[in-house]
């Protein structure tokens, strides 16, 4: 496939992945410290809402004398704060009141949809409150001039860069800092964390609320870098996909980024195929080839790392790899029938992939042992 197509797809994939990544990071902090969060969807929705409200109202009240970006930053601040607050609710319900974390997540989702729709109905829409715009694209000097990589990675809006930075930072935080060490200990074996003087519940509060900040970013990015205003139900399920991304990613930020990109890419493909200049069948074939190849390589690396590579496994894996590459290469020489797949099915790609990945890849990936279990001091 030609370069521009790849650039286009990858860029779109990254843009689509960003909110998912932020959502996943929210889940990461919570679950690593032992608090499951299926309320990410709701948290993101509320944050998107407050972000818009914050920026728009600030702009309105100050009569627009300040530069747009300032109002946007105000909005960002509101989004983050509200994310943290709603996360605090989750924390209180599931840590202090020890109600099932799944229920508390459900409550948050219900409240988020209800409140945002309600207020949008009675306030935002009647008053035609207007958004103040979005963050500009800021190409990074020099880097953005690199062919291919440049346009894909280094000419984005600020929060996309922030997303990448956060992913790396979170990897560092979780695995290379005292905070991370304590977070994981609390999520794995709270009792022993307790015996070395770590306040389990405090640690959980901190992490869940910090997670809320990321959910806030996830909501904010949709308003500040995409839509430019709040629209009802604008998260439409991204919070749940983020959760899925987190779980594939084996509860690591880099893994989450990877799987979010997977979603982003397949969704982008679903859009791109509607442009009508590609042969659907061919693309699908190539992609499935890619997936098989990727699966093969992934397993190979995994096995090598786990040092349990038996001849049988090796053969089956190499079959995968060979098959994948054959499909990829072969597709250039085959004449495919021109037949357009119904767009509903194009939209299915991410979800089917999810299930395959769940079944195929992460069967042994275990989450934090104590996730979902409230900590009782004996």
């Amino acid at each position: 496939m030609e370069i521009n197509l790849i650039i286009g797809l990858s860029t779109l994939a990254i843009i689509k992945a960003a909110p998912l990544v932020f959502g996943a990071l929210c889940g990461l902090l919570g679950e690593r410290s032992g608090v499951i969060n299926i309320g990410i969807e709701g948290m993101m929705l509320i944050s998107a809402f407050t972000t818009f409200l914050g920026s728009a109202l600030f702009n309105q009240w100050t009569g627009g004398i300040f530069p747009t970006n300032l109002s946007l930053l105000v909005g960002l601040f509101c989004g983050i704060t509200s994310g943290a607050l709603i996360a605090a609710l989750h924390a209180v319900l599931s840590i202090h009141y020890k109600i099932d974390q799944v229920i508390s997540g459900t409550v948050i989702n219900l409240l988020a949809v209800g409140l945002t729709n309600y207020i949008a109905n009675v306030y935002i829409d009647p008053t035609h409150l207007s958004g103040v715009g979005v963050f500009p694209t800021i190409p990074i000097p020099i880097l953005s001039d690199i062919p291919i990589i440049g346009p894909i990675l280094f000419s984005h809006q600020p929060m996309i860069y922030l997303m990448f930075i956060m992913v790396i930072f979170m990897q560092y935080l979780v695995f290379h800092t005292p905070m991370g060490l304590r977070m994981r200990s609390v999520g794995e074996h709270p009792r022993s964390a307790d015996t070395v003087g770590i306040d389990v519940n405090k640690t959980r509060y901190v992490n869940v609320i910090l997670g809320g900040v990321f959910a806030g970013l996830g909501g904010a990015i949709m308003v500040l870098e995409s839509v430019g205003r709040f629209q009802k139900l604008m998260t439409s399920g991204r919070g749940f996909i983020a959760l899925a991304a987190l779980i594939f990613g084996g509860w690591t930020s880099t893994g989450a980024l990877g799987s979010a990109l997977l979603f982003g890419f397949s969704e982008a493909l679903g859009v791109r195929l509607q442009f009508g200049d590609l042969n659907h069948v061919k693309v699908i074939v190539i992609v499935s080839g890619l997936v098989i190849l990727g699966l093969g390589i992934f397993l190979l690396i995994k096995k090598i790392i786990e040092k349990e590579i038996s001849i049988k496994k090796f053969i089956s894996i190499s079959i995968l790899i060979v098959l994948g590459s054959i499909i990829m290469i072969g597709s250039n020489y085959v004449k495919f029938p021109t037949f357009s797949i119904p767009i509903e099915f194009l939209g299915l790609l991410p979800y089917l992939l999810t299930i395959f990945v769940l079944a195929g890849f992460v069967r042994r990936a275990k989450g934090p042992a104590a996730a979902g279990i409230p900590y009782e001091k004996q």
Partner: protein
Amino acid sequence: MDNLLNKLNPIKNIYISVIVPILAIFTALILSSVVIILSGSNPLLAYLALAEGAFGNLNNWIETILKTTPLIIGGLGVALAFRGGLFNIGVEGQIFVGSIASVIIGTTLKAPAIIHIPLTLLAGVIAGAVWAAIPGYLKAKFGAHEVITTIMTNYIATRIITWSIGMNGPLRKTTSFVPETNSLLETARLPIMISDTRLHIGIVIALILAIVVYILLFRTTLGIEIRTVGLNITAAKYCGIKVNRNIVLTMAISGGLAGLAGAIQVMGLPPYNFTAGFNVGYGFDSLAVAVLGNINPIGVVFSAFLFGAMDSGARLMQLRAKVPVDMITILQGLILMFVAANQIIRGIYRIQIQDKKADKVNLSQGWGGGSK
């Protein structure tokens, strides 16, 4: 609730399981009234309209019942899954699949009602069961997390169905510019209980099912197995229960119930077909209903009734008080919160009851490093 445990202290149990939810609802109403006031409407007016819309006259009662029916069955599905330690978020999709299946049978098959109705219902049950068994299998075989897989199967179901009733879809009613299927044949529609009303026999089926599920859970060996797996998978293995088979089975039953809910919706309500925007949100309501009903079949009936009443009362609430329908969602969220975190309620109203932890299922068990 474990019926044996109930005997432990009947009075106290009835007390706790009645008074606390009532107070929770009351508190939720108070809180939401603040929101209503801020939006410039009158909560009392709104709530009166809500009540009248739900119970004002025979027709409103009937509408409430009609709303309650699918919630009961769906709620039973979720509750049963919870009992088996499974978190079935996929009820939404299972309802869709079920209703589509019964549409297929109900529109194509030619048979006298006596046979056609049961077959159409059955189609819904089977479709739902199979659709739910997939995540069940994925969990049993690969430990794939059912919360994720069921969410995905929801998307998949809705997308495929949207396509199937779309312009070139196989189920599209050809003589309509609306994305909808043909209407069920007369012989496949549920009988009406009170003539000249919409009240079909679905509610009877639902109530019977509530009892059936109760018996299944607390009076059968299968019930013991499901609950053992739900409470302690290792113990289940120890006493020789086929855990994986059990997981798939539980999901299947749960999904079958959801499918039935869908079937009853298409078979009971005009225009007796499946249109875009059909039954959106019932799945997630069932989830709330199950939790609110303390995942106890009988409790589910009451909580479903509560939600059903709110949903049908919402019409008059909008019409009279001009309060947007989203208020209902807020209310339901608050109620769920206060019922789940009933310590808050006990705190406010100073009710002294010791927590009865026994038989409490950890809804998020096996999430990560947990049991599976």
